[in-house]
C-alpha cells in the first residue's frame, strides 16, 4: 500500500496518446505565429464567398436556392435548427476563440516573445477580430440605426477565452467594441506586412464600419487618407488578380487550385458550360440592372438560361475558374464609399463625382457615361449606390447597403426601403442563432415577420 501511495501520481498521470496537448503545442513565439497564421487560414476559408453568400441570400441579388437550409435564409424564415446558419456562426466564433487565446498568451508572460512580434500580433488579432464581429453583428442582429440608441440586441462579445454562456451585447456595444479593436489595430499594425494585415487594412475596415453606421464624416476622413495611396486597376474582374492589384489593401491569399480561397464563390456561381446554370442563380432584378446597358463592359459577365420560359434563370461568369483571388478591401470600395459619403454630407461634390467617374470610366472604357461635374448630390448618391450593386455582385455588400439606407432614410420601416418584398427591418432579416445558444441568459431573434 505504501508502494502505491508513493507511485500513484505517476500511475494516474495519463495523457492521451497520439494527440498533441496544449502544453506541448504552444511553447514558443513561432507556435504563436503559427496559431495566428491558422486564424488567417480559417478566415480565408470562411470568407471564400461563404460569409458573403449568406448576405447575398438575404438580399435581392439572388434567386431562391433549389433546396436545403439556405432556402429559409433566402425566405427570411430561419429557425434555430438551421445547421447551415449555425455552422457559419460557430466557425466565425471559433476563429475568435483562437484570436482571444493569442491575446491571452501574449499577455500572460508564459512564452517569451519579442516586443515587435507582440505589437504586430496584437494589431493583427484585433483587426481580424473586428472583421469577424462586424459580420456577426450585421448577419445576426438588426442593423445599426434600427433603434434610436442602438440598444437593440447585437451578438455575444467575447474578448477573452472563457466558457461561460453569455448574454448578447447591444448593437451599440458591439460597434463600440469593433471600433476599439480597430483603433488598437491601427496603432499596432505596421505599414507593410507582406500578405498579412497592415495599418491600412484596419483603416479600410474602419471606414466600412463607419459607413454602415451612417457616420459619413469619419468615412470621409479615412478615405481621404487612404485613397491617394492606391491606384485604380483597369481589370474588370478583381477576382482574377486581387492580391497583386494596385487597388489591393487586404486580400486573402489564394495561390492555386490546391490552395483556393474563393471556393464558395466558385461552387455557388460557376457555370460549367454555357448551357448549364450554376447551382445558385442571380435574381431577375440583378440581371436586368446589370445588363440594361450593354455598353457597360461588366454586363458581359451575365448570362440568361431558358430565356422566355417559365424556368428562365440567370448566371454570372465572374467565377468561372478553377481558382480565384479573394479581395476583401480595395480602392474601388473606398471610392464609392467616399462618393456616397461626400454627397450625403453635401461637401466636396467634385471629389465625389470624380470617384464615381473613376468606376464608370473603367466600366465603359471611356468617359462617355461620366457624371457631369454639376450633378446634384442626390443623383451622385443614386449613382454611387447603383455602381456599388454593379461593381460588387455576390460580395455580400448589397443587403447591408439596403439596411444602412433603411436605417437612415426609413427609420420607422414605412416600406420606402425594401429588400425584395420585405421591409429592411423585418425580424427574419436577422438570421436566427443556433439552438446551442439556448441558455437562460440568451435572447433569440424574433422569427419570420417578413413578407
Amino acid at each position, binding site marked *: 500500500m505504501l508502494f502505491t501511495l508513493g507511485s500513484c501520481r505517476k500511475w*494516474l498521470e495519463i495523457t492521451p496518446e497520439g494527440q498533441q*496537448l496544449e502544453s506541448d503545442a504552444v511553447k514558443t513565439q513561432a507556435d504563436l505565429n503559427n496559431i495566428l497564421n491558422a486564424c488567417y487560414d480559417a478566415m480565408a476559408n470562411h470568407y471564400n464567398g461563404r460569409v458573403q453568400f449568406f448576405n447575398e441570400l438575404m438580399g435581392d441579388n439572388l434567386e431562391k436556392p433549389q433546396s436545403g437550409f439556405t432556402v429559409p435564409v433566402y425566405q427570411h424564415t430561419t429557425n434555430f435548427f438551421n445547421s447551415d446558419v449555425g455552422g457559419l456562426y460557430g466557425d466565425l466564433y471559433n476563429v475568435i*476563440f483562437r484570436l482571444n487565446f493569442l491575446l491571452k498568451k501574449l499577455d500572460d508572460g508564459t512564452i517569451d516573445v519579442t516586443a515587435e512580434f507582440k505589437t504586430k500580433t496584437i494589431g493583427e488579432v484585433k483587426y481580424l477580430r473586428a472583421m469577424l464581429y462586424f459580420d456577426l453583428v450585421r448577419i445576426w442582429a438588426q442593423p445599426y440605426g434600427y433603434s434610436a440608441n442602438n440598444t437593440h440586441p447585437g451578438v*455575444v462579445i467575447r474578448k477573452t477565452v472563457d466558457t461561460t454562456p453569455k448574454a448578447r451585447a447591444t448593437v451599440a456595444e458591439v460597434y463600440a467594441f469593433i471600433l476599439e479593436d480597430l483603433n488598437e489595430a491601427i496603432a499596432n499594425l505596421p505599414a507593410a506586412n507582406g500578405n498579412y494585415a497592415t495599418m491600412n487594412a484596419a483603416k479600410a475596415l474602419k471606414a466600412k464600419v463607419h459607413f454602415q453606421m451612417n457616420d459619413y464624416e469619419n468615412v470621409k476622413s479615412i478615405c481621404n487618407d487612404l485613397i491617394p495611396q492606391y491606384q485604380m486597376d483597369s481589370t474588370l474582374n478583381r477576382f482574377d488578380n486581387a492580391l497583386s492589384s494596385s487597388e489591393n489593401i487586404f486580400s486573402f491569399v489564394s495561390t492555386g487550385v490546391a490552395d483556393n480561397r474563393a471556393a464558395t464563390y466558385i461552387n455557388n456561381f460557376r457555370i460549367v458550360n454555357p448551357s448549364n446554370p450554376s447551382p445558385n442563380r442571380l435574381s431577375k432584378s440583378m440581371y436586368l440592372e446589370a445588363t440594361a446597358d450593354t455598353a457597360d463592359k461588366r454586363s458581359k459577365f451575365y448570362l440568361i438560361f431558358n430565356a422566355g420560359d417559365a424556368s428562365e434563370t440567370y448566371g454570372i461568369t465572374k467565377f468561372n475558374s478553377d481558382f480565384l483571388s479573394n479581395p476583401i478591401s480595395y480602392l474601388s470600395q473606398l471610392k464609392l464609399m467616399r462618393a456616397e459619403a461626400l454627397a450625403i454630407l453635401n461637401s466636396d461634390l467634385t471629389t465625389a463625382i470624380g470617384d464615381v467617374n473613376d468606376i464608370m470610366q473603367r466600366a465603359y472604357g471611356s468617359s462617355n457615361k461620366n457624371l457631369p461635374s454639376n450633378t446634384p448630390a442626390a443623383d451622385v448618391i443614386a449613382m454611387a449606390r447603383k455602381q456599388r450593386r454593379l461593381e460588387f455582385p455576390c460580395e455580400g455588400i448589397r443587403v447591408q447597403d439596403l439596411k444602412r439606407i433603411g436605417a437612415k432614410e426609413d427609420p420607422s420601416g414605412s416600406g420606402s426601403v425594401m429588400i425584395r418584398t420585405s421591409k429592411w427591418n423585418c425580424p427574419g432579416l436577422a438570421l436566427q442563432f443556433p439552438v*446551442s445558444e439556448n*441558455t*437562460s441568459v440568451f435572447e433569440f431573434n424574433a422569427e419570420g415577420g417578413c413578407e
Partner: protein
Amino acid sequence: MNTRLLSFLLLVIFARSATAQNIKGTVKDAGNEAVIGATVQVVGSSYGAVTDALGYFEIKRLKPGNYKIKVSSMGLVTTFKEVTLGTTDVSVNVVMKEDRKQMDELVVVGYGVQRKREVTGAISKIGGKELNDLPVPSFEAAMQGKAPGVQVTVGSGLAGSASIIRIRGISSISAGGDPLYVVDGIPVTQDYFILGNSGGMNNNPLATLNPDDIESVEVLKDAAANAIYGSRGANGVILITTKRGKGKGWKFGAQLKAGVSMPTAKPKMLNSAQWMQLNQEAWENDGHSGIAPLPGGITHAQALATNTDWVDKTIQTGSKYGMNFSATRGGEKLNTFINLSHDYNGSYLVGNSFVRTSGRLNMDYNATQWLKIGVNSAISRGLNNRVNAAWSGGLGAAMSTALPIYPEYNADGTWYRAGNNPVRNMENMLWKTEELRALNGLNLTLTPIKDVVIQGQTSYDYMNQADDQWRSSEITGNKNDGDAYRGMAFIKNFNYYITATYLKTYKENHNLQVMVGNEFQRANTLRRSADSTNVPGLFSDNPSKYLNARYLSQPGTNWAFLSYFTRATYNYKQKYFVQAVFRTDASSRFGSNYRWANFPSFSGSWVVSEEEFMKNNKTLSFLKLRAGWGKSGNANIPDNARFATYSATSNNITYNGNPTLFPLKLENANIHWETSDNYDVAVEAGFFKDRLTVELDYYKKVTTDVLMYLTIPQSIGFSQYWDNVGGILNQGLEFSFKSRNIVTKDFQWTTNFNVARNFNEITSLGVYTEDAVSGGTNDTRVVVGRPVGTNYLIRWSRVDPNTGLPIYLDKNGNETNLYDNKNRVAVGKIIPDAIGGLTNTFRYKQWDMSVLIIFSIGSNIYESSQKRQASLITDWNMDERVFDRWQKPGDVTRFPKLTRDYRTYNLPDEWSNTTLWLKDGSYARLRNLSIGYNMTPKACKKMHLTSMRIVGIATNIITITNYDGLDPEIGRDSEGGSPGDLNSSRNMGSQNITYLTPPQEKTFSVQVSIEF
C-alpha cells in the same frame, strides 16, 4: 535462575499439559467452504471459541473426558458433536448444513460475503439457476423481472444483443447509466461501442460470459452496499460470482439444449397494389392528374407485375442449440470447477447468430492452515454472425425503403439495384465479429496471525475483437473480387486488490470486523483497422490478403483508477448491526486538483425479531429494520475529456505558404466527479417461519455535478464540451415478497413478486436549457422538472375533418396549423413509473412449472420511424395502420390526407417530430413459461445418474399492451456512438425510441440436464 525454580516451572508446565488438552478443528459448510465466525461452545461450560477465516478453532485447557460441542453460525443449522478427550489434543471436523430460512442466505457484498441477516444495504441476489434456464441473447437479459428496481430492457431480437440495465432509475445524463460489472472481483469491460456503432446493434462483450458458469449475481443498489465500489457505484454494481468446486469427490454434469426463435410480432407492410394505390391517392391529393411517378426506376407495368414481400425474405425461424459439460471436485485440499460449453444462438433474422464457445477452470487449493490459493480462469470465443438491421438495413429496409414494387432481380437475371434491395445487400456482404476473451484471476488468502485475514487478487481481462466485413464487387462497384475490411480492438484490463480483515468477537456478543484495502485498475485499448481491395471473402478466410492489407492504427486510450477503502462492521448479539465504509478514489480522467474523491457510507440495521419481546411471536418470524446513507460516484467520461488538444505540428495545412497550428478541443481542467448522495430505509420481514418474506425499501438518490456532454453556446468557439452541470433526483419504493404458498410432500407452490416505483427528475441544468445535451435527436430532451429522457415535442391535435390536414397545438394548447419548434413541450417520458416481475413456481412430484410475468408501466414509446410509414408518401413502404387516413371531407381519422409533399402538413422536412408518433409504452409480458420433469432417484440410479431433468421453455409468448407498433420492449444503440451522446444506449435517449428496431424474439426450447 536457580535449578530449583526451573524444575518447578517445568513441573507446572508438564503437569498442565498432562491434565489440560485442546479440542481443535475446522468448521465447513456443505459446499466445503470454511465457515467464518462460527461459535463453538462446550455444552454446559463456559469454554468456547470462534472460527477464523479458514474456519479453524481451538478450545484450550480442557481436562480429559466426554464433551459435547455446539457449533452455531448464522444461516446454518446448529450442529452438535460428541468428543472424547484423552491425554492428547483432539481434532474434529464439523460440517454444517444450510439453514433453509431465506433470511440467512449468503450474499456477496464486494470484497467479501455476508449473511443476508447481517447486510445493512440494499442488495438483490439472483441465483445462477434462475439465469441459466432462459435462452437469452446474453446472461444479463435473464435478470429481467427478478430483482426489484432493476430495469432490464433486452436490446432487440438480434443474436447476442446487449440489454440496457438501469438500477433505481438513472442518475447520469452523459456519463452513462450502465452499472459496473464485477466478475469474481474483476471490474470487467462491457462497453458495446468498442468498435463503434454499426448494423443497428453492436457486439455485446457480456455475451461471451457463459451463464452456466454463474453461481449467483448480486445487484448492489444503494450506497451502503455499493460505496465499497464508490468510484463507480453511482449506477449500481452487478457482482457476478462464478461456480467453484464443492462437495466430496468428482461430480459431472451435462446439458443439451435446442430451440427455435421467431419474432414476437411481424410487421404488416403494404403489398405492391396497396402501396401503388396510396401513392396514386397522394399524387391526386397534391393536385396532380395522371399516373403517379414511381421511385426506383420502375415503370407502372413493372410495378403491377411485382409484389416482393421483403419481410419474408429477411426473417426466418431461427434455430438454437447448446451443450455444456461441467466437472466439479471437492476435497480437503483441492476444489475444482471445470465447465466447457458451446452455444449456437440463431435469431429469427436471416444470417444472424451468436456462437459462444467457452471454458472455465476455477480452483481453490488449501496449501496450509494459513494459505489458500484460488484461481479463476475463463477463456471464451464469441462469434457474432452479423446482419444489418434497423436503420442499417435488412429487416429495417424491409420496413422502410425496400418497396414491394421493387424486384429482387431484374428481368435479365441481374440484381435489382435502382432501389433498396436488402437481399442483394445481404447476399453480397459477409460480416462477422469475433471476440476472444480471457478473464483470469489469481487469489491468495493468508491468515498470518489469529483473527487477521489478508487477501490479494490480481487479474487480467483481455479482449480482442475483430470485426470482419467483406463486400462483393456487386456492392462496391469495383471490378474485382470484392473489398475486405477488419476493425480490431485490443483491450487489456489489469486489476489488483489487496485487503486485510480483522475479525474479533468479544465476550461472544460483540462481533467486530474491520477491513482495509487497496485497489488499482488500468485499462488500455488499442484500435487498428485493415482494408484491402480484390479479396474474395473475409480476411479470416484469406490470410494472405490480410498480410498485405493496408493498416491504420489509432492512438491507444488508457485510463486508471487507484482506490483505498475500509469497511467496519459491528454487531451486538447478531441483533444490532452497524457498518461504516470509506473509499477514496482517484481517476486519471480528472486533473490533479480534482483527481481524488471520497465516498463514505454509514448504515445500520436492527433485527427486531431477536429481541426477547418478539421471540414468541408465532406470526412474525423475522423482522429487520435497516437504514443507510452514502456517497457514490461516476467518472465515465472519455479519457481525454479534460484536455485541450491541438492539431499536429506538421498538419500539412498552410496559409500563405506558412505552417498553421490550431486548437481542436476545449480544455476543462476543472472537470470532476459526478457524485450521488444515497439514502435508503427498509423493512425486511419473515412470517410463519419465513414461509412468507417481505422486503420494502424507500430510496432517495440526489446526484450533483452531473457530467454532461454539453452542446455549449457556439459563441464560446466550440460546440461541445464536458462539464459538471446540474442535478438529478431519483427516489422510489421497492417491494418484493417470496412466498411458499403450499408446501406438501407432493405439491409445492411458491410465488416471488417484485415491483419498483421510480420517480426521476432533473432538478437543475444550470443556465442550460432542454437542448443543451449533445445528440438529442428524435426530440428526446433534458428538461428541468422532468425525468431524464423526456419526449419534448410539438403536440399533434387532430386531423381537420374538412381538409384532412394536421392541426397542431401551440405552447398554450390552442390549435394551430403552424409547425413551430417554439411550441415544443414536455409531453412524455421514456422511463417507466413502475417495473416488476411475478414468478410462480409449481412442483408436483417429479414435475415442475415456472411462470414469469414481467411488466413495465407508465413509459412512452416514440415510434420515430412511423413518421415515414403513415400518410407522408416518400420512398418508404408503409404498414397497414395507414389505412386509417383522411380521404374525403367529414372523415374523422387518425392520419391526415396522404401527400407526397411534407409542406402540405406545414412541416420543415420529412423528419419532423410530433406527438402523433408518441405511444403508451406500458406492457405486461409472459416472459417465461417452463415445464420440467425430474427423473426419480430410482430411475436415475438405473441409468447410473445422480439426477436427470428435462425442461421445455417458452419465452415472450404473450404480450399485453396498448402499443400498436411491433414490440413495446425497446432498447437500441444510438445513431451516434460518441460517449456523451444522449441517444447512445449508454445513456438514456435510445431506450423506448424505436426506429425500425427489430422486435424481441419469441423462443421455444428443450433442455436435458444430467448429473453423474
